[in-house]
């Protein structure tokens, strides 16, 4: 039986993790990754997001993009809860190396050590990287 069949029968729920490692705006990875996360919500899967390396910058409060004439997509991270995507993990080491604390982030997240992120990653059925 294909996975596609499983989706249609509502049977198989897989664990998907989206690993975000790029800063917003400098490349299109962050925005494209967010689009795929939103699409994944339609499939009622077990979705989590991990923010590692420069990916942590995606969640910084106070992004104001008028001056660069790009879409500020950061409010979308706060809307994920409405799509039942509530597992947001941020690696502590990446956050601290960038001079950031949990108070600098625009959405509630779980702060994890690198090892804990690695454990979560190892538990997934599918890991998708942006």
């Amino acid at each position: 039986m294909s996975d596609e069949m499983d989706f249609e029968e509502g049977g198989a729920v897989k664990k998907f993790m989206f690993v975000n490692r790029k800063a917003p705006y400098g490349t299109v990875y962050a925005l494209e990754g967010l689009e795929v996360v939103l699409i994944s919500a339609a499939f009622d899967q077990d979705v989590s997001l991990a923010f590692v390396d420069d990916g942590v910058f995606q969640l910084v409060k106070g992004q104001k993009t008028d001056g660069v004439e790009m879409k500020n997509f950061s409010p979308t991270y706060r809307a994920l809860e409405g799509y039942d995507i509530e597992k947001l993990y941020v690696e502590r080491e990446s956050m601290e190396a960038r001079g950031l604390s949990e108070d600098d982030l625009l959405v509630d997240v779980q702060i994890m050590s690198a090892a804990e992120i690695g454990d979560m990653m190892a538990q997934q059925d599918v890991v998708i990287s942006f």
Partner: protein
Amino acid sequence: MLHIVNKSPFDTGSLASVLRVAKKDGGAVLLIEDGVYAATKNSATEASLKAAGMPVYVLQPDADARGLQSRLMDGVNMVDYGGFVDLVAGHDNVQSWL
């Protein structure tokens, strides 16, 4: 000489190369795009910028887009797009460290 850095210092070694190679006398560093993250207060790169020995400029619209308005280290100079042009015109030559 004006040295322009547009990549995150946490992702590539561009800024480190500038700070290693650039002639400090008459030199200046302009951080744009993801390069602006180097000037984040309390970050791992703050100390290296403080020790740059050259004036450091940050393109304000790029810092604002990334939410860094109140999170930038002391001692950097903010410029707008007009200031970017003035910096380019005010130096004999320019190197973009892509």
